[in-house]
């Protein structure tokens, strides 16, 4: 029997304190069941991580992934960087309160880095490397790359087209975003998205259906349509 492997940032993360409530409802669990995979699916995910941490995890686990297994990789924000070996979640150096999570020295180094060494062209180049690395690494597996934040730089999946991003689904659930920005909405929620994987259960179901259809029938993966919207 095949196994489902998920490598992801917060979109594939299930916090320990919500495990029992969500263990059978998360999109990857629903997908694993639909695909008829073994119970011991693997989601290797971390809130706020960078693509570099994900590729490190892919390298670490690669020998255990069978060619019959299914693999979903969520590509996160290209501007995140894995600076802190153990503080994986502090990769979003543009987070409004990043200095709350790191030492003063680190904050100074990050600030200089952001202003004088960090450039978008570097992020674009590495993002391009990363997506091609995943495709190459899993060229003998059943793979879907899910765009987390960007979908205008590169072809994510070669067998079908991929439209939209997970961030678009996440935002489209929030009716208030017609009047407020995403940042304002987060601020109102004390900077914590109350949803698991930034999606409500109804959209976990839709997402798992779409991923199933792309895996099984190479159907185009449209993340801009078919999802429940404007209800939060």
């Amino acid at each position, binding site marked *: 029997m095949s196994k489902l492997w998920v490598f992801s940032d917060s979109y594939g993360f299930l916090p320990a304190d919500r495990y029992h409530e969500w263990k059978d409802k998360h999109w990857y669990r629903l997908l694993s069941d639909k695909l008829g995979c073994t119970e011991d699916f693997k989601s290797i995910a971390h809130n706020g991580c960078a693509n*570099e941490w994900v*590729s*490190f995890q892919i*390298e670490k686990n690669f020998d255990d992934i069978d060619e019959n297994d299914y693999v979903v990789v969520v590509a996160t924000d290209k501007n995140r*960087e*894995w*600076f*802190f*070996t153990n503080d994986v979640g502090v990769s979003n150096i543009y987070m409004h309160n990043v200095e709350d999570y790191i030492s003063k*020295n*680190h904050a*100074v*180094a990050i600030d*200089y*880095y952001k*202003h*004088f*060494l960090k*450039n978008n*062209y*570097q992020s674009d*180049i*590495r993002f*391009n*490397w*990363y997506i*091609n*690395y995943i*495709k*190459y*690494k899993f060229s003998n597996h059943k793979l879907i790359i899910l765009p987390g934040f960007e979908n205008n730089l590169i072809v994510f999946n070669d067998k079908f087209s991929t439209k939209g991003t997970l961030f678009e689904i996440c935002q489209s659930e929030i009716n208030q975003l017609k009047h407020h920005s995403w940042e304002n909405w987060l601020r109102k929620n004390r900077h914590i998205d109350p949803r698991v994987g930034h999606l409500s259960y109804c959209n976990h179901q839709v997402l798992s259906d779409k991923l199933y259809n792309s895996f099984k029938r190479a159907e185009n993966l449209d993340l801009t349509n078919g999802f429940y919207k404007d209800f939060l």
Partner: protein
Amino acid sequence: MTNLWLFGDSFATVRNLNYHDLTDDKMPQWVWMQQVARNLPIDTAHWCGLPGVSNEWIMNEIKKYTKDFNKGDYLIVTSTHINRRWFIKDKPDLGNIYLDNLNKLVTKKQARALKEYKETFLDQHLVLSKLYQEQFLAWCYSFAHTLGLKLCLLPAFDENPFFMHIKQYPGNIANSLVGVDEAEFVGRADKKYDLFHACEVAVDRRLCHLSEPNHTVLAQKIFKFFKYGEIIDLQNGFERNLFKNEQDVISYRPRDV
């Protein structure tokens, strides 16, 4: 029309601070890429190398020419040192952030930023370097496959099992272009840098860090790879111990330059 394309670092260009007028358009016929170009069934050859760059710059250059590649073209890439980064956009040749005189070549704020980065994130920099190298190499294979190019990836410094057409050796045997370069010195790498230091020769006087006989050996190996699919062995077949003392280094002058 079939083209040969070469992208890379100082192993892929004759540009050298010792010879200000020397450009890739005017390189001597014995330089390895010229020899490869003469042996392959091509119509034109394009050179795009710059000393000191990172793999990010190399990828960016390759991508710039995407629409100019033809199916069946030959693409040679020298993959550079994994620790280099393209941090300063208008100075891609400052990829080596450990360069001695780097502070004199950048603004004060850039220098401070580099100092903070190196002092704070050195360990993680090394971890990321290995990941980036694999990603870059995978990108090269993917790019060449998509466009139908014949790809020859050469490790300038760091080996990796991803170099599938380069002979792999167990243990710490250097099997890269820099290994060929250093073996030209009696006493290899340590002696090379000692001699450079003693002679106050800041920049290698050889072209592409190789002496003329080794340009020919390298060119033949690359040609045989393209023509017969022969695995490239960068450990054997090259001339060694060509530089024994300071005089050898000081008096070296490449032919036709």
